[in-house]
């Protein structure tokens, strides 16, 4: 799947989540966790700087990587993840309403390879999706 196709799928996924905001139909509903799922064309990523927009994030964690982040605000939270990154869930957010994920959007701001080069990479090559664990 190309990057463009993956972005389209992500948009559809987020749109589907947004359709659920009205509460009709099946919805997990209530506070809970949501994963940030990474799609990357590389296999030697050493770190990511990720911006998540949207209010109400109450917790940030990662089960496989080191992570630092700014204090969540009404506009969102910025995360720095370090480790031998692989595609898949890289961090977990705690949100007040899992049924309203359309409020959130995740973007890779910077990406860097692992050592010894630590080259900066084009963030347009990455995709971050929000998905239920």
């Amino acid at each position: 799947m190309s990057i463009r196709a993956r972005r389209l799928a992500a948009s559809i996924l987020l749109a589907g989540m947004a359709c659920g905001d009205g509460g009709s139909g099946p919805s997990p509903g209530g506070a809970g966790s949501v994963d940030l799922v990474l799609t990357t064309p590389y296999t030697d990523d050493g770190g990511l700087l990720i911006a998540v927009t949207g209010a109400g994030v109450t917790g940030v964690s990662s089960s496989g990587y080191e992570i630092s982040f700014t204090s969540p605000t009404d506009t969102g939270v910025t995360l720095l993840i370090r480790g031998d990154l692989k595609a898949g869930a890289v961090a977990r957010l705690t949100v007040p309403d899992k049924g309203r994920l359309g409020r959130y959007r995740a973007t890779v701001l910077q990406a860097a390879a692992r050592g010894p080069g630590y080259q900066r990479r084009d963030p347009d090559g990455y995709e971050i999706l929000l998905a239920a664990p």
Partner: protein
Amino acid sequence: MCSATDDRRRRVRRGPASAPGLLLPLAALVQLSLASPAGLAAQTVTVRGWLTAIFTEQEPPASPLRFLLNDDRGGRFEVLLDESVARGIGSAALHRGFRAEVELEARPARLRAFPGQATPSHRAIRVTRLSPPAAVAPGLAVTAYPYVTILCRFADIGSEPFQPAQVNSRMGGSYPGADHFFGELSEGQASLAGSITLGWYVLPKPRSGYVSGTTLDFGAITADCTAAADADVYFPQYHGVILQFNAGLSVRSTAPFDTLSFGGSSALLLDGAARAYPMVWMSREHVFNYVVLHHELGHSLGWPHSSGPYSQTYDSRWDIMSRGYIYQDPVYGYLGPHTVAYHKDLTGWLPPARVWRSGSGGPASFLLLRSALPPAGPGYQAAVLPITGTAKFLTVETRLIGGYDRGLPAEGVLIHEVDPARWDRTAQVVDPDGNGDPNDAAAVWVPGERFVDPASGYVIQVDSAAPEGFWVTMSDRSHALAASVRVDSALVGDTAIKPDSVGLMVFGTDSLTASWTVAHSPGAHWVRLVTTAGQGSGLIRWERDPGGLPVGVYVDTLTVILPGSATGTPHLVDSFHVLPPLSLAVTPASRHDSVPQGQAAPASVSALVTFAGYGGDVAPWSASHGAASWITVVTPDGNGGGPLTWSRDASGLPPGLYVDTLRVTAPGASGSPAELIDSLVVYQPVIAVACATSVLLSGGGCLGAVGESYLDQTGNQDGSYDLGDLLAYLDRKGLPLPSSMDLRGLATGGVARRPGGAPRAHP
């Protein structure tokens, strides 16, 4: 119309060859074959006759003068004179006319001619003067200058827009008639009484037969207009002739392209007397324009234009023969001022006893009387100061408001530089500020001001004002030294004599013989005057003897005394430095700096090379340094004291202390080589990981430019600090991402957890 002259009229019958208007083609005179224009161009012909000039309104560099040649056979030509040819004739002759033998190119010149022009134009190759300039009038006596004004109308223009009596009134003795104007300018010596006006007379050709745009056929219109009136006029009884036309003549060739009138002279072969007559040609538009009338009458008297020392002819408001339009009378319109002293002197209107002429050598103080309406008491009306070695001279005159000078731009003493070799604008205002305006304060001298002519050395000083003029002091004797300061040096203990000299310039009419003496401070035993006295300009020589003088600075003053000099006693201050042997020093003896690791841009640093002692101001030196690759000497050599500059480049240097020696060498100087120790510490900056992380997360933080540069240089080296640089640093140091405590207060406030750590909600 001319009854008063009938009984004196003596008619002279003219033969066909002298008939006015009969033109003999020049080519016919030389009987050339016209088969080849080139052949004609190479031919010349010599003609004898009257050569006269007419002042036009052409601005430089175009010739302001047009020349007519009336040959003795009755032919007439317009002659084109190069300035070099004109210069050899002399301005007085050029401006008033003279008999001449002229060698002309046989081929007609195209310049200035227009289709149908009756007077052919030829370029003059050579002009030989056969007579002195035509006389204007004897000076120092009441002289009659009667003019006959002839009203002529063109064959195709029937209007007669004014009557003879009206026109004649402008010549009258009442303000501002020409007789009144020139009576004031000449202090009653010139009278235009007896001037008459006759007309109208019809010209044989339409206006287009004489005038074409900017060109006027002076020869034809003069001959035809005077011939038309000849039956009624006995020309020899008149000083000059004014031709007044019923339409405009030619127009100015530059903006504002206005209609022109003209003045000058022209030879008339009428009534048995061939001579150059003062002439005026007036356009209809100017019939009652007194500025134009007085200006053109001035030309007819032989006055050229005057001006400022610039490129404009009509820029001086001091002379009717320049700008002219300076005062507007409510009845008569614009009126002009007096003419300048040079022109009055040309016409003989300044009594010799009232003109101060330099030559006495010493300074003279006297009352320089006003130019307009001068009182009869003691004083001079002008001063004339010849410039030695040239034909040029200065004129000095007082100009005060009054009479026709009521519209002057200022009151004061006015100076003109007169160069008789100039064919026009002979007198030019001395205007030291060179700002293009000869009417401002810089061009007029008032009490307390002094003018020293840099070319001649003349000194003109205005001492005080008086009701009738200014008290002035002027001298043609002055002197000046080429320098006012001299400095020399010697090595202490040296006994070699140090000779020196300075130029002395002596100005004035007796500059070659004026005697002077030299003096110096009596206590300066180390000075010996070689030249103690002399005459005229020359060199003053002296010697300095350092023998026995201890280290120190010795000062003497040389004074040149020239009795009667307007410039006092110029002096020269002579300083003699007796110096110790040469020594070298470099200060400071060491330089130290520290830079963070990764500093890329070279930093410039300097010290001072100084010499003391004899020869230190020119002593050569060179600089080098040790093996340090991080040093580059920017000033590897020099002469005399000055900065020693080098640069350091710490890029690529790992942390540590680096030391090198810079060495300055000056041959023969004690203290050489002088050394300077340069040390450089390259340090690793302190990096707060929390700050480095905060910069990436929130864009703020406390890392600073040095830290960012260091992290990039030791990271991915892509020119800016980024995530890769932080990862590299953490890996190199084995550090984790900062803890929550590290980030607090840095606008991040986040939490760091080791992999697998339990997430913690942010408060």
